[in-house]
């Protein structure tokens, strides 16, 4: 079932200075079977938007359609949605079985399936979340990950048109989160429900979503596939929010940016003051400066984690230290220790202070 969100906006509080705008008018089209991540820092309005789609909150104006059905004025209970809460919100006095069966038992008598049908449906759902053996347990006897799986089974019991998840893995530890993410993606591939989930974790959004909606201050900053989002961020906010960044600020004269005793040739850049940004993996290191790039740095911290080594680089021409990630091979070749003096060579520089974001390739060869 597709979702069409048109001109939805929301303001909290009475008119006046104390009033806060939670959502600017928002437009968003979600295709049938899509898994969409709403990504943003806290206070960006992503949860408000999700709750408005669910019907748990009312928008001030605008409309929401599920397929052809206008649900703007439809009560939550009649919207045919499944909702998963961050803190599971299981009914603690009911067994896992009764929790999952709740929605089916709550149906009016003439729509309610027979007890056997409910039973087989619930057991099927519990099998899907791999918790058949736990049917008789109470929520307090389950781990966080298991509880969230019960909550998912409960939300899917009524075969909702739309599945909405509010920071579904936010309360879980990193390993369980990773596992559940993978599992949710498989489930989505299998069942093809249309789904909207809220997260503040970029990795989660990029890994799970077909498309990511980046929000800040009640506005949509960009809607794109994870790949596009990472490679072609629409603005500085998106670029900053999707990963670590390093800043390079300086004066440009004749296509050479100077900052203290550092300088780098950047072809195609206009003269004047500029701020350029770059990702940690866009920095390589060398023992020699090239004649086109002279960026002396000192290694101040080394974190050898996973496939790469994270380095903190300091220099007196830098306001705040840079973060660089390099391969283990390069790390060993350069024989890096703390306090070692090296030269940074950016492979790309991103510019967001112009009307259009641009990517600049600095001249590396002399």
């Amino acid at each position, binding site marked *: 079932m597709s979702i069409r969100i048109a001109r939805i906006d929301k303001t909290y509080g009475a008119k006046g200075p104390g009033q806060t705008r939670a959502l600017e008018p928002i437009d968003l089209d979600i295709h049938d079977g899509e898994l969409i991540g709403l990504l943003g820092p806290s206070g960006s309005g992503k949860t408000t938007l999700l709750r408005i789609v*669910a019907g*748990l909150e009312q928008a001030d104006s605008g409309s929401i359609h599920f397929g052809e059905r206008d649900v703007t004025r439809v009560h*939550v*209970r*009649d919207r045919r*949605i*499944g*909702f998963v*809460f961050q*803190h599971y*919100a*299981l*009914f*603690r*006095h*009911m067994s896992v079985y009764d929790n999952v069966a*709740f*929605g089916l*038992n*709550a*149906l009016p008598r003439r729509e309610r399936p027979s007890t056997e049908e409910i039973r087989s449906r619930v057991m099927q759902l519990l099998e899907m979340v791999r918790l058949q053996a736990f049917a008789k*347990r*109470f929520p*307090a*006897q389950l781990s966080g990950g298991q509880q969230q799986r019960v*909550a998912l089974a*409960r*939300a899917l*019991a*009524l075969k909702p048109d739309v599945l909405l998840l509010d920071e579904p893995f936010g309360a879980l530890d990193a390993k369980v989160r990773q596992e559940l993410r993978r599992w949710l993606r498989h489930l989505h591939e299998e069942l093809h429900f249309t789904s909207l989930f809220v997260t503040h974790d970029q990795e989660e959004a990029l890994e799970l979503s077909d498309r990511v909606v980046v929000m800040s201050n009640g506005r949509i900053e960009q809607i794109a596939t994870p790949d596009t989002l990472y490679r072609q961020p629409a603005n500085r906010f998106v670029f900053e929010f999707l990963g670590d960044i390093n800043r390079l600020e300086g004066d440009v004269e004749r296509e050479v940016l100077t900052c203290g005793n550092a300088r780098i040739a950047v072809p195609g850049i206009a003269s004047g003051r500029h701020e350029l940004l770059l990702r940690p993996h866009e920095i390589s290191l060398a023992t020699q400066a090239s004649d086109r790039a002279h960026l002396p740095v000192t290694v101040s911290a080394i974190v050898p984690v996973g496939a790469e080594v994270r380095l903190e680089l300091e220099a007196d021409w830098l306001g705040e230290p840079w973060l660089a990630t390099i391969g283990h091979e390069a790390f060993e070749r350069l024989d890096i220790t703390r306090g070692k003096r090296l030269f940074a060579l950016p492979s790309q520089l991103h510019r967001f202070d112009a009307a259009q974001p641009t990517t600049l390739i600095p001249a590396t060869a002399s």
Partner: protein
Amino acid sequence: MIVSAFGLGRQRRVLPGFGLSLGVSLTFVSLILLLPLTSLVGQLSQLSWSQYWFLITDPRLLASYGVTLLGAGVAALFNAAFGLLMAWVLVRYDFPGKRLVDALMDLPFALPTAVAGVTLATLYSSNGWIGRLLDPLGLSVAYTWVGIALAMAFTSIPFVVRTVQPVLEDLPAEVDEAAVTLGARDGHAFRRVILPYLWPALVTGTGLAFVRSLGEFGAVIFIAGGKPYETEITSLMIFVKLQEYDYAGASAVASIVLATSLALLLAINLWQGRFIKRLHGGRP
């Protein structure tokens, strides 16, 4: 080293003052609670078993048990419903004067029960404000068990409101919302989701209200009228016996009230413990 200084196998507690605070508490429990109870038992020891049995099965007294239990039972049930409603209104809605209503809920605790009794008796007697209206309808409240139940309900309603209120406040909004997103109608959500959450608190509050009503004296006697076999409550019987300098008899009746109250309180506690344990999977 520290352990050996405090004796072998004895763990040193992190919180200081355990000995002192427990000692003071026990002293006060003894002085204020246990000592009077001991004197009650002392009075009882003057009676033989057959005398005791004869005293507590006096037909007039038996009738008073019935009146008291009926009044307290009706009052407790009324309070369970009305107290739950009050707590619900105070927690879930915002309205002008909410804090005032909230404060009013404690009034029955603060007010001398005799004041409540006199007020109720004046209101409901056949020429009182409300009694005058009810009289033509053939309803009389004062000097009947209805009046007794009314007075008992008045003095014990805070028990229900004040035990349910905090639990209701702690009930996460998400739980309600989860029920609604699963398509539950309001009634279904209340019965199956909210009420079970409140159940332990509600039972405890109602139980406390019931126990309190069993021993209520001041508020009830004025409106009860004290007609033997009809509107005489057990605590009035104790009072009557005391006025006749029949200390042993008064103690015998008091022991019945005391035993019933203690048994009920204990039962409520045990039940609540089991209920909570069940939530955490302590069931076999």
